[in-house]
C-alpha cells in the first residue's frame, strides 16, 4: 500500500506545538478534523482511543519514530497524519530516546488487512536511516508531501 493511499497531505505538521505525547496525538487528530477526514464530534474519542492504546504498549519503536494507531469506527478507510518535533517528544520508546517523527494511523474496525498493509509500508520506509533523516529535514507540508511521493515512486530507495 502506497503512502498516497492513506496519508492525508492536508494533515502534516512540520513542527508540532505539543511537547508531550498526548498533546502530539491530540494535535494530529485535530489536523485530521481540519482536513475533513474525521468529524469534529468524534475527535475527542479518537484521541482518547489512541492514547489508551499507547498506554497499553508504546508505539515508539526506537530510532526517533513513533506510530501511534488505533482501529476506530470514525473512519471508513485507513488514514494517517504526520507530525514532526525538532525538540523531540517522550513516547516511552523502546530505546528510551525522544521521538522526532510521529505517524498517526487511524484504521477502520472491520478491515484488519488494510491496516497491516499500511503498517508494512510505514515500517519498510522508517526502517531506512536515509528516510528517517529526510523526514526530519522536512520543514513544510509541501516538502513532506514530496518526500512521501518520492518514496512511493522509489520503493527500493
Amino acid at each position, binding site marked *: 500500500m502506497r503512502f498516497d493511499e492513506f496519508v492525508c497531505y492536508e494533515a502534516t505538521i512540520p513542527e508540532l506545538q505539543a511537547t508531550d505525547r498526548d498533546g502530539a496525538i491530540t494535535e494530529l487528530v485535530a489536523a485530521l478534523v481540519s482536513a475533513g477526514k474525521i468529524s469534529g464530534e468524534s475527535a475527542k474519542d479518537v484521541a482518547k482511543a489512541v492514547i489508551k492504546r499507547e498506554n497499553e504498549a508504546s508505539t515508539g519503536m526506537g530510532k526517533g519514530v513513533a506510530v501511534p494507531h488505533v482501529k476506530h469506527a470514525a473512519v471508513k478507510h485507513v488514514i494517517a497524519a504526520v507530525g514532526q518535533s525538532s525538540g523531540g517528544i517522550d513516547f516511552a520508546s523502546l530505546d528510551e530516546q525522544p521521538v522526532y517523527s510521529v505517524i498517526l494511523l487511524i484504521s477502520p474496525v472491520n478491515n484488519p*488487512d488494510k491496516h*497491516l498493509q499500511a*503498517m508494512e509500508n*510505514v*515500517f519498510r520506509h*522508517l526502517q531506512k536511516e536515509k528516510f528517517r533523516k529526510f523526514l526530519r529535514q522536512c520543514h513544510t507540508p509541501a516538502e513532506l508531501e514530496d518526500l512521501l511521493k518520492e518514496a512511493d515512486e522509489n520503493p527500493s530507495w
Partner: protein
Amino acid sequence: MEKLVRETTVEIKNAEGLHMRPAMQFVDTANRFECDIIVSNGQTNADGKSIMQMSMLAATCGTRLHLRAEGPEAEQALEALRELVEVRTFGEPPP
C-alpha cells in the same frame, strides 16, 4: 562446531493478523532464545527479534510464514514461536 539450524512454517490464525501487539509478543518470545531467527513471507525477510522488521511482513490472517532459526536454542525457539502463533494465536480470536 556446526551451527544448529531448524526451519518450520507457521500460519497466522488470529483474525487481526500480525499487527503490532502480536508482533511484539513474537519478538519478546524470539528474544528469549540464543539463536538468530529469520522470518519470511516469501517476499520479505525480517529479523524475528526486531519489531520494526516484523511490522514489515503484513502477515494477514491465513498468511504462512517461514521461520529459520540458527544457533544453540534453534529448536526450542521454533517450538515456542509455533505455540505462540498457532496454538495460543497471540491470545486473539480467529475470524
